C-alpha cells in the first residue's frame, strides 16, 4: 500500500518512484544514505520503540497500527527479535516502526548501532509508570546518550506509559519526577542540547494515539504549511477546531494552532470509527470492490450540546474532522466552499512534494557522476 492517491494514470507514477519518495524528506545530516539514492523501505524515516522489558512497546505498536484490542495485549508474547513494521498507508504518514526487545542491549558492539540509529527519525522510550521506574531512567539515559552519539538528529520522545492505573495526582507527580531526573541526568553528562519530550500515555484511552500523533508530526516537514492552511480554514469558516487525520491509524498529522483538547480529539477519533463502521456495514456492495472510505465520504453529526462534528474526505488516506457550533453551520455553503479551497491547497502541497520526489533521483544521479 505504498502507492499514493489516484495518480496511476500519471506517466511517472510508477511503483519504484513512489517507493523512493522518502528521499524528499530531509532530516539533516543523518540522511546520508537517502541522498545516495538507496531505494526501498530501509530509507523510510524510522521510529524506534525502546524501553525496558514489559514496558508496553509491542502493545503500543499493535494497538496503534494493528487495531489490536487493548485487553488482548495481555496475551502478547514477549518480543525476541526486532519487529519492523512498515507504515505506509498515507504518503504523509510513511515510516517504519522498529519494536525492540527490551532484554537486549543494542549498543553492544556486536550490533551495528550505526545501522540501527543512523536512519532513525525518532526514538520513543517507553517507561512503565506503574512499575518502579528507576532502572528505566538509567536505561533511558544510556540509550539517549549513545543514540545521540550515533545520530544527532534523532528526536527523543519519552512515553510515561500505563498511566491508566494511576490517579491524576500521581500522573502529574510521575511526569514531574521523571522529567526532572531525566533532564538532570543529561545536564550532568553535559548534554543540555538534547531535548526530551514527555507524554503520559495509555493504550486504554486515546492518549497513546495523541502522543503518537505528535511524534509523527515532528517527522513531517510540511507541518507548518498544513497548520497554516488549517488556521486559514477555521478562521474563515468559524470552525472551532480542525484535525487532519490519517484515517487508518487515527493519528492526526496536523491541526490548527489552537491548543488540543483531549476530549475533542477523542470525539473526532470516535467519529472516524463510527463513519468507517457504518460504511463498512451498509456502504459496501458485495459485487463491487470498494473501500469503506472514498471521495464521497462525508458525515455530519449533531450533538445535543449544540456542537456539530463534520467529517470530509481530503484524499484516500486523509480526512478533515472539524468541531463547530450549530449556528455557524447555517452557512454550510461557505464552509463547503472553504473546504474545497482547502482540499485544493493540500493537493498543491502534495504536488510540490511529488515534483521534488521526481527531481531527487535525477539530482542524485547527477551528483554520482560529476
Amino acid at each position: 500500500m505504498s502507492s499514493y492517491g489516484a495518480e496511476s494514470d500519471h506517466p511517472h507514477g510508477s511503483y519504484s518512484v513512489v517507493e523512493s519518495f522518502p528521499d524528499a524528506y530531509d532530516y539533516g545530516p543523518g540522511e546520508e544514505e537517502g541522498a545516495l539514492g538507496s531505494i526501498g523501505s530501509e530509507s523510510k524515516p524510522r521510529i524506534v520503540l525502546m524501553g525496558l522489558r514489559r514496558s508496553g512497546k509491542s502493545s503500543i505498536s499493535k494497538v496503534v497500527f494493528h487495531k489490536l484490542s487493548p485487553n488482548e495485549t495481555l496475551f502478547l508474547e514477549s518480543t525476541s527479535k526486532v519487529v519492523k513494521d512498515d507504515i505506509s498507508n498515507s504518503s504523509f504518514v510513511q515510516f517504519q516502526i522498529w519494536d525492540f526487545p527490551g532484554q537486549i542491549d543494542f549498543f553492544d558492539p556486536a550490533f551495528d548501532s550505526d545501522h540501527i540509529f543512523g536512519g532513525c527519525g525518532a526514538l520513543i522510550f517507553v517507561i512503565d509508570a506503574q512499575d518502579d521506574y528507576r532502572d528505566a531512567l538509567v536505561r533511558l539515559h544510556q540509550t539517549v546518550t549513545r543514540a545521540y552519539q550515533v545520530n544527532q538528529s534523532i528526536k527523543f520522545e519519552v512515553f510515561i506509559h500505563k498511566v491508566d492505573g494511576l490517579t491524576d495526582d500521581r500522573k502529574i507527580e510521575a511526569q514531574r519526577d521523571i522529567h526532572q531526573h531525566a533532564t538532570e541526568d543529561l545536564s550532568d553528562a553535559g548534554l543540555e542540547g538534547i531535548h526530551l519530550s514527555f507524554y503520559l500515555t495509555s493504550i486504554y484511552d486515546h492518549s497513546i494515539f495523541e502522543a503518537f500523533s505528535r511524534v509523527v508530526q515532528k517527522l513531517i516537514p510540511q507541518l507548518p504549511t498544513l497548520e497554516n492552511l488549517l488556521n486559514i480554514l477555521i478562521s474563515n469558516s468559524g470552525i472551532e477546531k480542525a484535525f487532519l487525520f490519517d484515517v487508518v491509524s487515527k493519528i492526526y498529522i496536523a491541526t490548527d494552532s489552537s491548543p488540543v483538547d483531549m476530549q475533542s480529539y477523542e470525539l473526532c477519533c470516535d467519529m472516524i470509527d463510527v463513519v468507517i463502521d457504518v460504511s463498512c456495514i451498509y456502504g459496501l456492495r458485495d459485487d463491487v470492490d470498494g473501500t469503506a472510505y472514498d471521495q464521497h465520504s462525508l458525515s455530519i453529526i449533531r450533538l445535543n450540546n449544540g456542537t456539530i462534528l463534520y467529517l470530509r474526505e481530503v484524499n484516500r488516506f486523509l480526512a478533515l474532522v472539524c468541531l463547530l457550533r450549530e449556528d455557524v453551520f447555517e452557512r454550510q455553503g461557505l464552509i463547503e466552499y472553504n473546504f474545497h479551497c482547502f482540499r485544493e491547497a493540500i493537493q498543491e502541497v502534495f504536488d510540490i512534494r511529488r515534483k521534488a520526489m521526481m527531481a531527487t533521483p535525477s539530482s542524485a544521479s547527477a551528483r554520482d557522476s560529476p
Partner: protein
Amino acid sequence: MNAVVALCHFCEAHGPAILFCTQSFHSAHDAQLMMDAVPPDKRIPLPDRPDSRASDASSVSSVSSLIQAPPAKSEQCEACRSIPADEAGFVSYDTKANICYISQQHPEQPQLYSVVRQACVRSLNCEVCPGREGPIAFGEDGSSHVLSYTFKIKDSQARGFSRLYSLVVVMMDRVFLINSWPFLVKHFRALIDDLQGKAECVYSRETEESKQHTSRSLRSSVSSTHGLDHLRRIRANETGRSLVELTGDGGIFRHLHRYFVFLLKAGGLRITECVLEGPPRVVADPESSGEQPGPAPSTPEALERPLSAADFRVVEEEGVCVLGSLQQVFHLMDKASFQYLATHILKGNQVIVRGNSVSLVTSLINILKNIVPEKCCQIVPFSKSYKEPFVCNFLGLSSSAEVPKHVTSSDLHVVVEIFHLGAAGRVVGGVWAGLRLGEGEGRGREDGNPCSGYRLVVVQSNSKTSEAKASVFLTRLVTLLSSEVLSDATISGGLSALKEEWMNKVKVLYKFSQMGHLEMPQKNERLTKLLHEILYVGYEDLPILQYWRAALSKEYKTHLMQAART
C-alpha cells in the same frame, strides 16, 4: 564431531541465555587442560579414567556423573539456569575412542563462550526463520557456522503462554555442518517434539487447574473487571520457571546430555572427514626435511639409533669432505656398480655403507636415500655394530665393525665400501675374499673434486644379478644421471618428478590389488596388462612398486578403499 551443541533460551527477565551445552574433548587430558585454563573456583574436578569395565558394555559408557561445583551466579533466574547451582555438569566417557563429553551450563573457555553466546543471541534474537519455528543456518567463513532450530515451549504463566528456546550446533566447518543438516534437523525435531509433548501435558493440566480456580474466585469476587485486573497483577510478579518445571521431567537435562552426546558421536560417525587430494608427499618439502639446520645427532649413542628420513642429518666433521649430489656419487663409481646398488635400494634391500669417516658415510646415505620416497627410509647414521634389516634399511657402519657372514652372502643386502686412496692411488683396506669387487674407478674430475681421493666400491655377491634386466625406473634414472648437459638442480628436480610418477603408479597398483576377487591366472593376466599397457613398466618394476606402497599415507589408503567400495 568437532562441534558444540547447546540449548538456548530467551529469558523473559534476562534476555537470551545459554542454558546447557555439550562439548567433546579428545581425551580426559585435554579436558583437564581446559579446566586448568579457567579460574580454580570454577573448575570441575575431573575424575581419573573410569573403570575399564564400562568400555565393553557400549562404545559410549553410560556413566554420567554429576560433579560437584561451587554455586552458580545469583543474577540468573530459574529459567536461565539448567543445572542446579551446587552441581557443575555431566560427563560421559567414550573409552574406545578416548573422547570425553562434558555438559555444562556454558563453556568455560572465554573464546568459546563468546562464540556460543553470539550464536545464541543470533539464533534467538536476530535471524528470522519463516514461521518462527524451524531450522536455519548462518555464520561467516573464518568464524563459526551455526545450525539453529528455534522452538516454543508452552508455559501457562509466561507472556503469550509460550517461551522461546533454540537448539544450536556451532561448528567451524561449514561443509560438514550443511552435510549434517538432514541428520541434525531430524533429531532436533524428534527431541523438540518430545520436549513440547511433555510441556503440553503440564500446560493443559495447569490451565485446567487455573480455570477451576478462576471460576471459584469469580463467584466470590464482585466484578469481572476486578478479575482482569487481578490477572494483570499476577502476571507482573511472575518469575521464570525452569525447563524441568515446564516439562515436569526432573531428569530432562540428563536426557539432553545423552541426546547431545549421541548427536556428537553419531554425527561424527555419519560423515568422516578425510584428505581428498591425492598425492601423499613423496618429495620432502624444505621446511620439514634436511635443509633445516636441525641439531645433528653428534653423540655416538645418538648415531646408533634408527631415524626416519625427516630426522636424519648429515654429520659434518672438520677437514673431511662430504658428498654433495647423486651425480657425484654416480661418477665416483662405474655404471654397473651404480645400477646394482640402485636396484637394491629401490627394492628396499638393506644398504650398508662402510667407512671410517662419519661425515662421508652420512653424506652418502643422505644422497642415496633420495632415490626412494622418504617414508620408505629408516636410517641408522653411523653404528659400530651391525643392525638387522628390520631396524633400518640404510645403515652407516664403521670399517672396524664386523658384517655377519649371512649378510655378505645374501642377495638382500648391498655393501658400499668407502676407501681412502693412498698417495700411490692404491686401495687402502682389506680385500674381500670370495667376493667380486665392483671396479669403481674415480673417473676424471680429479681437479676440484674434493672427494677424488676416495673410492666407492660396491660389493656384489656371487649371484648373477647383474645379468638381470634393468627396471624401467633404473634405466630412466641412469639416463638422467649420465646426462652431461643438465645441472645438479635440474637432475634433482627430474628425480623428484620421476618419484612422483612412480608413486602414482603405486596408487594404481594398490587400487588394482584391492579389487581382486579374481582367480589367480586371470589376475596375473590382468596384472600383466596393467603393467605393460597402463603403467608402461615391466615385471622388473613390480618389486619396486610393491615396496613403495609403504610410502602411501594411511589416509590415502583409506580414501582409496572407500572409493573402491562405492
